């Protein structure tokens, strides 16, 4: 086990180095730079831009800049944002909270409802419920999230006035109930697509298991239908879902750009887009490394859990 973990760790570090190199050079080789946003400022001259680039160390050779960045990173210094001089980790940290809140609640909703629909669809195959769920999933998957978002805002905020049109909390309030009130619409809108995905996967996984011999054996032994379903069917059908959930972890933290934009939710997706737009290299690189680590971690955790649950899998 320890050897296995060590091996995975070694692989991960090599992968991270490759990712960081590709990311760093691609980012810096695109024309333009963090100062181009000032090019149209009245009275701005090329001279001034050159002077500031010099002060920021932007005109050093790229390999030097890369090594400098890596050296700092190894020492735990993720650098500072070009936009507001804040340490990259604290910038990420602040947006992470917003994203965790939104993605966490939306994932809870989608997994809960999605697995339930999936199981029920599989046990009541070709029933009216199954048809409605299948069609519903197709619709939810086909319609873009921003459309759901805008329609939701139109109905529930502008027409009915029940829910706020966006934002994470009302400025000056920020109580628990206030957060909850603001959380309802974005998390439900975001969950719609994921409910569809989870329900389809769960339905397929349940169908795979439901006709296997051990399930028939259990029934033959007179185990109650409810117990068969909960213990033997669902337990086994959830196994592939763990891998799926592990792969979802980075998504969970990278945020939902569209939903965050429509609902002015200050999360990671928007941070990434804003930082890219301003060529805020330190933050973009920070986000890249952060999500790369999460992908590796997510896969590792999924593997470990699968091994723990399924005795057929051996880690070596």
């Amino acid at each position, binding site marked *: 086990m320890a050897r296995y973990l060590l091996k995975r760790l070694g692989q991960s570090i090599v992968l991270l180095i490759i990712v960081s190199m590709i990311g760093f050079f691609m980012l810096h080789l695109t*024309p*333009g730079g963090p100062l181009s946003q000032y090019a149209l400022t009245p009275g701005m001259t090329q001279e*001034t831009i050159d002077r500031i680039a010099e002060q920021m160390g932007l005109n050093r050779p790229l390999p030097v800049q890369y090594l400098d960045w890596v050296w700092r990173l190894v020492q735990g210094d993720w650098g500072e944002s070009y936009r507001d001089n804040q340490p990259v980790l604290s910038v990420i940290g602040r947006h992470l909270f917003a994203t965790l809140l939104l993605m966490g609640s939306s994932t809870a909703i989608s997994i809960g409802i999605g697995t339930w629909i999936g199981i029920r669809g599989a046990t009541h195959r070709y029933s009216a419920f199954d048809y409605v769920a299948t069609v519903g999933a197709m619709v939810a998957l086909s319609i873009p999230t921003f459309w759901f978002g805008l329609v939701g805002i139109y109905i529930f905020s*502008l027409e009915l006035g029940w829910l706020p049109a*966006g934002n994470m909390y009302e400025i*000056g309030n920020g109580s628990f109930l206030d957060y909850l009130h603001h959380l309802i619409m974005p998390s439900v809108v975001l969950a719609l697509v994921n409910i569809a995905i989870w329900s389809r996967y769960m339905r397929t996984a349940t169908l795979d298991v439901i006709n296997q011999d051990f399930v028939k054996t259990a029934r033959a032994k007179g185990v109650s239908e409810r117990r068969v379903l909960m213990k033997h069917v669902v337990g086994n059908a959830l196994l592939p879902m763990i891998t799926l959930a592990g792969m979802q972890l980075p998504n969970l933290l990278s945020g939902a750009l569209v939903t965050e934009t429509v609902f002015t939710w*200050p999360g990671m997706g928007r941070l990434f887009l804003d930082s890219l737009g301003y060529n805020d290299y330190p933050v973009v690189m920070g986000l890249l490394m952060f999500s790369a680590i999460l992908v590796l971690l997510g896969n590792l955790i999924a593997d470990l859990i699968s091994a723990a649950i399924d005795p057929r899998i051996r880690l070596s």
Partner: protein
Amino acid sequence: MTSNRITRRGTMQMMGLAGAAGLFAPNLLVSRALAAAPDAPTGQIIVGFSQEPTVFNPLMPRIEVDDGVQLSLFDALFRISPEGEFIPALAAEVPTIENGGLSEDGLEWRVKLRDDVKWHDGEPFTAEDVKFTLELVVDPNFRSWRTTGHDLVRDLTVVSPTEITWRMEEPFAPYMAILVETMMVPKHILGPEEDRNNAPFNQAPVGTGAFKWGSRTAGDHLELVANPDYFGEGPYIERLIYKYIPDLTVLYTQFKSGDIDIAGSQYITPDNYEEAKTLPGKVVEVVPSPTVESLFLNMERPQFKEKAVREALYAALDKQAIIDALYYGLPTPTESYLPQQSFFYNPDLPQHEFNIERANQILDEAGWTRGAGGIREKDGVRLSFTNSTTSGNHLREQAQQFIQQTFAEIGVEMTISNKPPAVMWGDYWTNSEFDTVIVGIVFTTGADADVTVRFHSGAIPAQDGAGSNTGQYQNEEVDKLLEQGTSTFVPEERKEIYHQLQKIIRDDLPLLPMFQYATVRGHKEGIMGIVPNINTRIDTWHAAAYYWDN
């Protein structure tokens, strides 16, 4: 053509109305008399911005929304009124030749300061702070936004806590306008800092302005609180909140839903104007902006060397169709690079006329004959070039297609090659790597009409010049007028020089002027004290005067 005329007149009327509304709105000086501003600051106002303010040291490079916040926190020596008049702010009076503040040759400056100003931390503001600020701006270790003008200042001398003098290396009339945009920073806080580029002050600024720094939630909003000891008018509200809403559609939705009180920069999109006007409980008006949209030419390209070509292209540019079809008739067609509200604007420039026949005729007479594919050529040069702008700017992208079509009718091939913003306005723009560009530029420096950095032959970065003459325009007469303009201090005399300059540039056409932008601004009914000011970059230039009337 007739229908176009009507629309144009309609637009002008709308602008007139907006101007009139400006006059009726409580003005800087008379608002107390007109409507009842509260005695103590009450309530809060949320301003929505579509870009995030992130720079709070007012001497560092900044974009419009940064200006918006800084103008609430800081003061400069002078302010500029909507009419283009200089008003003393931290200074006690505006130095002129008459009051002895300025020597005849414009070289000696003497500025008297107010004696009742305190920094937000209670320390008094003195001439030492002014000296410190003007020295910091030119400090080579400091990441300063602009050194133009400041680099001519010599012998800064603090005469007394309320008086400072200096000498200019050479006469430079635009310096007054530059001082309007140079906000004062506290010596007692920034002075002792080793590294002023990363000082804590830059994230928790201390100014003299109507509002004090409250808190910032990065990526979401920042909160300023009333400064009860403010020396000027206001503030009348307790809290001023700048809320970042990164999408203009969402900005408008939140304006509609009432989540924000003022739809700030970059305002309501023109396509929403018709609906916005009808919203209950909201005040929506069209306000001219100083940005001038033009088809910018790279004058070093062989295609554009000949004036006849530029004239023909201008004649084949259907401005009015673009304004009406794409911009809902809101912008005003223009012939000058200066905003039409500017003191220096020349209203007597020749009027553009969209005329394909005339354009063809000009090119025929100049000897440009149609060759392969109907594209005109002369001496081996084909009238074919690229046009670029920020990709994703849908209105500009559609305008390009309009222009492409009318140019094709005169045997000119224009191919579209758009780029993302960081690429577009990087080296591609500053090093003149483009053929033509569609761009909106504010040519003025505050209210000053000096355009040396844009049109002087010594300001071409691609030819090692210091400036932003990216069109590589060179004209000896223009150079001479620009130099005269900056060394003339009597406004009426400068006006004459700049009228002449606008005439030459209109005649020469290094850029094909299209229109002056107008923005659609909106706020909730009951907010008083909002006055548009074309001489500033942003609507919240004077948030100190905002208050709720209910």
